[in-house]
C-alpha cells in the first residue's frame, strides 16, 4: 500500500489536493503547516520541502510539490477516481495541462494579490488589492460565461479542476471581491459545495484546525 502524507494549511489551496485525495478514497496522513506562525521555515518542514511551500505530498517518502503537479499525479495513480477527463491523445492531455497551469500561474497569483496583497508589497497593500480585483474580474467573468451551458468545467462530469476554480473564486471573495451577478458561477459553487469528497475534505480541514489550536 502506498504511504501518503499531505502537508497543508486549512483554507489554503491545499484544500484542492485534499479533495482530490478524498475523491481517490485513499488513506493518507495530513500535517497542517501553520504559515501564520512561520512553520514553513522551520527546520522540520524544510527537511520535507526545502522550498518551504505547501501543498506537498510525500508518496512512500518521495516528494511531489506544486498543486497542479500533485493533481496530475493523483489522476495517473488513481485513474478510476475521475479527477481529470480521460485524454484520448497528446492533444487532449495538453488541453487539460493548459487549464491546470492557467489556474496555477494565472488565477492563483491574481487571487493572491486580491486576498493577501501584503504578500505582494512591502508598502501600502490597498492599491495592490485594487489591482488584484482588476486582474480577477476577467477571469471570473470568463468562467461564468463558460458555465452558462454546463454543470461542470468540462461538461457533464465533475473534475478536480472544478474544485481548483472554486477555491480561487471563493478566495477572491474572502479578499472582498464581489461575486454577485455571476449566476452561473453561483450555481457551480453550490454544486461543488454539495460534492461529497469536497465536504469530507472540509471536515478533515476542521479537524486539522482543532489540532493546530490545541498545539498553540
Amino acid at each position, binding site marked *: 500500500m502506498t504511504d501518503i502524507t499531505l502537508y497543508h494549511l486549512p483554507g489554503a489551496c491545499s484544500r484542492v489536493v485534499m479533495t482530490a485525495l478524498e475523491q481517490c478514497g485513499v488513506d493518507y496522513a495530513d500535517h497542517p503547516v501553520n504559515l501564520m506562525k512561520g512553520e514553513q521555515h522551520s527546520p522540520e518542514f524544510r527537511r520535507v520541502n*526545502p*522550498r518551504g*511551500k505547501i501543498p506537498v505530498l510525500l*508518496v512512500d517518502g*518521495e516528494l*511531489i*510539490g*506544486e*498543486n*497542479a*503537479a*500533485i493533481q*496530475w*499525479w493523483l489522476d*495517473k*495513480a488513481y485513474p478510476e477516481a475521475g479527477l481529470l477527463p480521460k485524454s484520448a491523445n*497528446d*492533444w487532449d*492531455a*495538453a*488541453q487539460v*495541462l*493548459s487549464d*491546470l*497551469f*492557467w489556474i*496555477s*500561474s*494565472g488565477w*492563483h*497569483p491574481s487571487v493572491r*494579490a486580491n486576498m493577501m496583497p501584503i*504578500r*505582494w*508589497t*512591502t*508598502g*501600502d497593500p*490597498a*492599491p*495592490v488589492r*485594487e*489591482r488584484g480585483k*482588476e486582474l480577477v474580474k476577467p477571469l471570473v467573468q*470568463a468562467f461564468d460565461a463558460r458555465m452558462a451551458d454546463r454543470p461542470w468545467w468540462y461538461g457533464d462530469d465533475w473534475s478536480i479542476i472544478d474544485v481548483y476554480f472554486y477555491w480561487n473564486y471563493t478566495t477572491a471573495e474572502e479578499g472582498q471581491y464581489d461575486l454577485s451577478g455571476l449566476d452561473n458561477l453561483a450555481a457551480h459553487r453550490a454544486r461543488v459545495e454539495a460534492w461529497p469528497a469536497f465536504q469530507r475534505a472540509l471536515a478533515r480541514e476542521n479537524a486539522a484546525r482543532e489540532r493546530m489550536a490545541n498545539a498553540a
Partner: protein
Amino acid sequence: MPHDLKLFAAYTACTRVTMTALEVTGAAYDLHMIDFHAGANRTPEYLALNPQGKVPCLVIDGQPLTENLAILRWLHAAYPEAKLFPAADSALDEARHLAVLGSLGSVWHPSVRAIKVPFLWTKGDPAGVKARGEEIYRGLLDQLDSELAERRWCFGDEWSIADTYYWWAYINSEFGGFDLSPWQNVARHRADNEALPQLQRALAKERAAHEAMEAAKQ
C-alpha cells in the same frame, strides 16, 4: 505527417522559451509577433485564438494551445527525441518535472514580473511591489543556486527546457535592474544556457521578426 505549427510570440516575452523548445525539436514553424503596444493581443482575431489575449499561443494543425507550460509538454510528447525533459521512469518522475514547470509559472514568473513591471501588480506606488518581488526572488535564487552547486542543469547532467525557462527569468529580472552577481552557480547556469545554439537561433529569429514588425510601422 509533420504538424503545421504557428507560434504567436512577443518581443522579450517568455515565448523565448517556447521558441528555444521549437528550435530544439527542429520542427518548422511560422512565427507571428504580437505587438502588445499596438493592442494586437486584443484584436477579435487574436482573442478568437486565445481568449486571454496572452502569448504564447501555438496553433497546431489549426487548433490553438495556450499556456507556455502546456505547450512545452505537448512539444515533448510530439517530439520525444528532442529530449525537452529528462526520461521519466514513472508517473512520479513526470510529476516532479511538472512541479518544476509549475513553480516556474506560478512562483518565478510572477516574482520576476513584480521586479520588472511592478506597476502591473498595483494601482499605487510600485516601489513596494518591486521590493517585495526582490525579497521573494532572492529566496528563490538562494534555493536554486544551492541545487545548481550539485548539478549542471536543474534535473542533472542533461539540459532540459526548464533550464531555459530559468534563464528567461534571470535576464528579465536583470531588465528590471536586479543584480544577479551574488549567485555564482546561477551565473554559470546562465552562461551554459547562452552557449546553446538553439537558444541563440531563437533570439536571432525573434530579433529579426521584431525588426521587421517595427520597420513595417515606418
